[in-house]
């Protein structure tokens, strides 16, 4: 037994069984390969989707459309059927996957269904100018499936699809009040709200991190895009949003969100200030003072967040 584990066992801080298990792991008498198996399955699923997408795109003329659609449709349906048959019942709490490959089968089925619909639209232009509805509905479907089968990969896919739909649809409408950036900010804010709702309601509360990460970056990026001048209202809106996020994340001890808010605010403010500043000395002083201030804020936050930072 390693000296450390043995001393903890002798002082009664560890029971016999956990001490034996820890000792096996520390001395490498037991090497669990769960992480490596997941890495293989994850990389495999990514490569399969990338390869199928590329093959369908490159070999359209050599493979008949019905063959492509049948192969994609059947394999996707087989994946969904397997998940429905093997999946555990829904629960608001975390549901463990029935086996190691389950999450990746669902992810592959969703990805193949996406390629199926893209090919359908490419070939026959069914929805024409409204093709982005595929993104919208597949986004909603992925989010629904993520809740049903407790799958964060599929949840991420759904959120990316919804963000893509916002980008396509609102650019096409081209209404100033409903511009892409406003819509992206609204989606980001909605995702942050969903993170809070997940945490409070305890319905899939482990999805909180995914919602929060997407939401924070989407909302802040949409504001940061135009925040490049001191007289731009976007800059002040961004600083306001970063301040609000900073206060909220400090209260909840979410350091990653806090750091994101600080970095976005710093970058936008510095770029805006540097546009007004003339001369190398002033520029360097601006960088020095601003980064010094940020360091002070982060060190203050470090003391406040303690274990989480």
């Amino acid at each position, binding site marked *: 037994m390693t000296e*450390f584990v043995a001393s*903890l066992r002798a*002082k009664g*801080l*560890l029971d016999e069984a956990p001490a034996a298990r820890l000792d096996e*792991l*520390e001395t*490498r*008498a037991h*090497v*669990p*390969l*769960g*992480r*490596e*198996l*997941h*890495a293989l399955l*994850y*990389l*495999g699923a*990514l*490569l*399969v*989707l*990338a*390869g*199928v997408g*590329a093959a369908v*795109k*490159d*070999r359209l*003329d050599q493979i008949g*459309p019905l063959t492509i659609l049948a192969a994609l449709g059947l394999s996707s349906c087989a994946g969904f059927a397997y998940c429905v048959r093997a999946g555990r019942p829904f629960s608001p709490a975390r549901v463990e996957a029935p086996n*190691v490959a389950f999450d990746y089968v669902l992810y592959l089925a*969703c*990805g193949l269904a996406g*390629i199926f619909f893209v090919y359908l639209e*490419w*070939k026959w*232009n069914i929805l024409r100018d409204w*093709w982005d509805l595929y993104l919208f509905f597949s986004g909603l479907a992925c989010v629904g499936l993520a809740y049903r089968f407790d799958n*964060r*990969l599929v949840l*991420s*896919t759904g959120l990316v699809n919804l963000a893509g739909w916002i980008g396509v649809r609102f650019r096409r409408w081209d209404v100033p009040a409903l511009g892409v950036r406003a819509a992206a900010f609204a989606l980001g804010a909605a995702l942050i709200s969903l993170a809070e709702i997940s945490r409070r309601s305890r319905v899939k509360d482990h999805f909180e991190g995914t919602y929060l990460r*997407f939401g924070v970056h989407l909302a802040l990026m949409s504001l940061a895009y135009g925040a490049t001048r001191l007289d731009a209202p976007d800059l002040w809106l961004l600083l306001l949003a970063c301040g609000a996020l900073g206060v909220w994340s400090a209260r909840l001890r979410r*350091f990653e969100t806090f*750091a994101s808010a*600080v970095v976005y605010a710093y970058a936008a403010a510095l770029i805006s200030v540097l546009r007004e500043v003339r001369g*190398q*000395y002033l520029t360097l*002083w601006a960088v*020095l003072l601003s*980064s010094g201030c940020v*360091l002070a804020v*982060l060190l203050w*936050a*470090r003391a406040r967040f303690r274990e*989480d930072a």
Partner: protein
Amino acid sequence: MRIFPAELEERAFRHARVREWKDAGLVSAQTAANIGAEIGEAPARAAWPLRVVLFGFSGLCLSACIGLFTIGIRDRTAIGVWCLVWAVIAVAAGETLIRALKAYRQGAEEALAAAAVVLCAFGAERLFGGAGRSWDFSTELFSFALAAASALAYARYGYRLAAIGVAVGLGVLVSSSSGSVNAARVELAALYAALLAAVTFWPDLPRRARVRLEIARFFLALSVPLCLNLRLERIAGGYAYGGGLDAFAAATLAAIVLIPAAVLAWGVSSRARALIWAGGIGFLIALCSVKPYLGIARNSWDPAVLGAALIAAALILKRWLDAAPAGRRGAYSSQELAGDRGGGALGLLAGVVAAAPGTAPSGPDVPRGQGGNFGGGGASGAF
């Protein structure tokens, strides 16, 4: 030499172990807190997101400071002297932070140490390079100073980044002093193999130092076949080996397949995850390089075939492990610990890959007459 007392390093190492146990679900939060209290006060360290941010902003602060003092100076010697002066200031500031704030791994003091290393190397190059000497001499001087300063930084602070700096500095030194590109490849591979052996078999290293150097072992083991791979530069758009499959190319092809396999076997037999990962990734890269080596055109479905093979390999490995008594083959099992499933950035990448085919279909206008597809009497689309 080491600024941190051995007792503090051991305490930090034990706290880190307990945090890992807690994250892996092996001990409860309460048990971890009790063990932490028993170990003693935890050294002031930051979690990695804060470390990265503090590292970045400290580097920015220091760069701006140096800029304020050196702006407008054009003389090489003056720049070199200023760099060395600032290296000393950075070291003094870092050590003050470590002593005054009892900082152990906080990011800011690491940035100051890293900056001191780079400033030393740059200062040495400005002072002793140039003035009619060749570009190669300047590169050799810079890389030698970088490796030496990194080695000193590792001995003083024990930072992993410093260990990687030693490998990078020596690598640049060897490649810039080689006679030809092919010789440089072989010498680099030999250098990294020697460094890997040194890191692995260095006598009397405490366990905490061995665990800390696992990341260096991973990069060194991965670098050996990468240095010998003649087809990687094409991806980066740089130098491309144009000799076809001659004797040298055939030898490197054999090496890039056999070396990762040997590293994988070494990792499995010594139960070292760093080597298992390095061998596995190296072997995958070798598989992807075989077609370019042999001059065979890639197919668009190749990634899908490789992906299916990886999934099959994972499932076969799991069944094989589970079929053993008590689910163990020797030391290995398919057991999962908490946190083994990817989330965060991996989820985002998965989302982007799965959603990518769904963006902007730009298909043919309807109707365009695709031969038999649209009742064209069986004529081809090109008709």
